[in-house]
């Protein structure tokens, strides 16, 4: 009876999340700048995803948070306290490691109980906490198993239970679902999200899977080459990417090289290379573009529509369908045009009447609000190569 009430107590203990602030955090290995000048502030109870390609510095950033790496410069504050030079075992941060890092020679219960044992909790108290943590991850019956007697997904949950059982204010996860198959991954996304909501913990979640980042996070930090390229909500990120890199990395984007020109009405428009008519096209973020600079215009494949040539207005680009890839609910059309090859993802529902086949002539069209321009750095080439 008493055990039950203790368990309930743990559940009631909600909203303990910590506030995290990174201030100009840098880490250099010899000449490699793995992380350079990252400043982030993470709110209490927030779910922040760090998204970036391999080598972006995600693990390094996390290691500085957990204390396994010392920053070259910068500060880490958790609830206002600078922890940058505190030993890992004194930080009280829950960590879920990429390959789980379970203790193979201990049972599930011993694994989950380890942080409690380190905190000198009496074994009776430990038992109720372990029990409760295992309930949270739906592994009640597995307490006496050893890790190698569990499936990958179950091991993942043990790692999760072990990281939350001591109710850390901050929970870090480094690609926790990386080793699971697709279905399980999608299932675990929901589980982790639910758990985080129940616990109220602040979560920093490292991944290079954009789907995970977009579906789970309150905010996403996109990292590239050691720096944060953009920090924003998933909708910000997808609809208003701050750079060509983000546009390309989060979702898919067609890029067309062009040049920004100042129009008579004071607005900046873009003329695409190869556009024979030299049409001045509007882009959504025209205000942020500088005239007379090279610009990449990005349009997402699902924002592109294909029309019969007869319907083409002055702005449309003409092209030939060179490939049609069936994807289930949608079909990806590859179109060759004078401004370059582009992808158009068309919903099959809307295609009932007009289906395009390879070799068809089409007029390519997109809404000006769906196009964004990005300055091309130096003589750099288009990122969609």
């Amino acid at each position, binding site marked *: 009876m008493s055990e039950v009430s203790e368990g309930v107590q743990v559940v009631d203990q909600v909203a303990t999340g910590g506030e995290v602030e990174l201030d100009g955090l840098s880490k250099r290995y010899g000449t490699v700048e793995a992380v350079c000048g990252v400043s982030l502030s993470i709110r209490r109870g927030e779910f922040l995803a760090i998204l970036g390609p391999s080598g972006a510095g995600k693990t390094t950033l996390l290691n500085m948070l*957990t*204390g*396994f790496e010392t920053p070259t410069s910068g500060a880490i504050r958790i609830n206002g306290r600078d922890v940058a030079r505190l*030993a*890992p*075992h004194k*930080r*009280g*941060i*829950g*960590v879920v*490691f*990429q*390959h789980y*890092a*379970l*203790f*193979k*020679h*201990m*049972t599930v*219960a*011993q694994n989950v109980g*380890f*942080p409690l*044992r*380190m*905190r*000198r909790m*009496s*074994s*009776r108290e430990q*038992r109720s906490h372990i029990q409760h943590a295992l309930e949270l991850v739906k592994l009640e019956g597995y*307490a*006496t198993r*050893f890790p*190698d007697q569990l499936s990958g997904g179950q091991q993942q949950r043990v790692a999760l239970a*072990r*990281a939350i059982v*001591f109710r850390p204010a901050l929970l870090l996860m480094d690609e926790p679902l990386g080793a699971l198959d697709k279905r399980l991954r999608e299932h675990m996304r929901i589980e982790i999200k639910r758990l985080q909501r129940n616990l109220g913990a602040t979560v920093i979640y490292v991944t290079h899977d954009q789907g995970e980042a977009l579906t789970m996070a309150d905010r996403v930090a996109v990292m590239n080459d050691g720096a944060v390229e953009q920090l924003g909500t998933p909708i910000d990120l997808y609809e208003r990417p701050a750079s060509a890199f983000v546009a390309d990395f989060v979702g898919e984007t067609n890029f067309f090289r062009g040049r920004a020109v100042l129009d008579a009405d004071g607005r900046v428009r873009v003329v695409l290379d190869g556009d024979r008519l030299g049409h001045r096209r509007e882009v959504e973020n025209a205000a942020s573009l500088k005239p007379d600079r090279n610009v990449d215009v990005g349009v997402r494949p699902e924002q592109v529509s294909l029309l019969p040539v007869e319907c083409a207005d002055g702005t449309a680009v003409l092209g030939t369908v060179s490939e049609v890839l069936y994807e289930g609910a949608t079909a990806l059309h590859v179109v060759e045009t004078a401004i370059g090859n582009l992808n158009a993802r068309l919903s099959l529902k809307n295609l009932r009447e007009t289906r395009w086949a390879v070799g068809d002539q089409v007029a390519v069209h997109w809404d000006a609000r769906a196009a964004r321009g990005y300055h091309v750095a130096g003589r750099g080439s288009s990122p969609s190569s």
Partner: protein
Amino acid sequence: MSVDSSPERFTDGLATRPRRRPDHRWLTLVPLLAVLILLFVVPLCSLLVDSFRSAQGFTLENYREQVSSPVFWRAIRRTLVVAALSTGICVALGYGMAYALTRMPKRVRGVLLVVVLVPYFTSILIRSYAWIAILAPNGLVAQALALLGVETPPDLVFNQTGMLIGTVQILLPLALLPIYSVMSGIDRAPVRAAQSLGASPAVAHWHVYRPATSSAVMAAAALVFISTLGFYVTPALLGGPGDTLIAQSILVQFSNLVDPAGAAAQAALLLLIVLVLFAILFRHLAPSLSVGGTEPTPATTTARPGRRPPRGTAGPTERHEELRTLRARILDTGLDIVGRLRLPILLGSWILGAVLLVTPLVVVAIWSLSDATYLTFPPEEYSTRWFADYFTDEAWIDSTFLSLGLASTAAVVSVVIGGFGAFGLVRGPRRPRLPIAILVAMPLIVPPMIYSLGFFVLVAPHNLVGTRLGLILPYVVLGLPFSVSITAAALRNLDVRLENAARSLGAGSLSVLRHVLLPALRPALVSGFVFSFLAAFDDVVVATFMSGPTAVTLPLRMFQDIKLEVSPRTAVVAVVLLGAGAAAVLLRFVTAWLVRTVRVALSRLGDS
């Protein structure tokens, strides 16, 4: 039940099913088993029979006599004490050194491994001898102490202290290497996980890292302990007259007291101790036997150190709980201290270990240039007279060539027999694998003194003593554990489908051997040869029994020379041998480099 995921189980099945022909691969085991049974098991059995024999027939009198002799018991006790002490020191030092190694950058690791490996491959005899020069009353340590103002240095040699130092130096690599090989494969992520969960570095090490090494530590301890039980050369050289260990005691019983039956009884008792220990420690030693891919080895099913989790509702009492917390607190305090001192501890273990391992080699090199005829270190005058002495002394040169010849012949035979045997062991029937692997390991486990005595007594009436054949046969046996286990390990890593593919393409057994197995196994066969060669080339014990006036092996000659007077002559031999070894290694690298350069040059020519 652990799941057997060995690929062999799967591929074996695939390999044998379509072929209806009976599998004759076990035939390759025949020579190996024949040699082991005839030349190893039979001598040991005959020794056992001898130990029960008297003029009147069967008797237990030999045993009664030994068991009631205080001399024998003292030797046993001394042996066990020395073995326990050297095991403790070797394993503790080896653990620290191995752990430090895994935490070092790759390049430093390579250099430090050389520091361990060069002494490991240097003969036991030479290393023991060097310690005399270091520890003797007018040796290196005494001189150093005198400089510090210590007038009467402690007695360090010709007593148990010297014996212990020598033994530790010789067996340290034996403890370090298996521990290191396991440690270098350990994933550090769980240690980090433990730290993130609130364990300080030392506590994390204790709860998470140490359990992963415990089996290797037990294996290392077992190896060192069992080896020390049969140690002869080092105690004989570094121990005092009253410090005989059991192996020496057997020899004394046999040759000085001319009591073959008593010696046989002592040998049988030592054998009993060794075998009982082997049986007890078997599950730790099993992974290093040449089995693998058999039914789940005992090590994987039973070596699960995790404590059972608390069961049911019968919770521990308050007192119990208090005791437990107290114990945990004491342990944590201890670990905390160790954790704070971990850098000095690791550094200290390496300094101590490196000094122990390297000093003898350096001392031998310097001493070989001494002008003196007796022991002074450092030498007062330098000359090359002892080199000249060695190269002009026909007896020494003869012994050198005799030993080279014997060791290489024995090593070749042992590699051939062991190679085929390994094939039968790995590719042959599954069931007899474990017993055969145990039998193959036995020449390494059974003290050479016991085996040599048995062999000698058996063949003495047949005019084999003093002949080359009489020396080569036991040397082949001593080489087999190495050649079989190394080749078997390589074979196990070799995909069986390669052989099957070759067969399916029409290759006969001989072609498969020539075109598939030999090229793939060459490195293993070469290192099998090296280890077998060294086993024979370092031997003193077999030679003590089997040498005759016309065939004195080099180690035996050195051993007798040292026993007679401690002169720099052995140092000269040591330097010559070390130089030859280094030259061989160098030659191998140089030829490899030459071949590569020539190949590159030729391909360039072809391109242009």
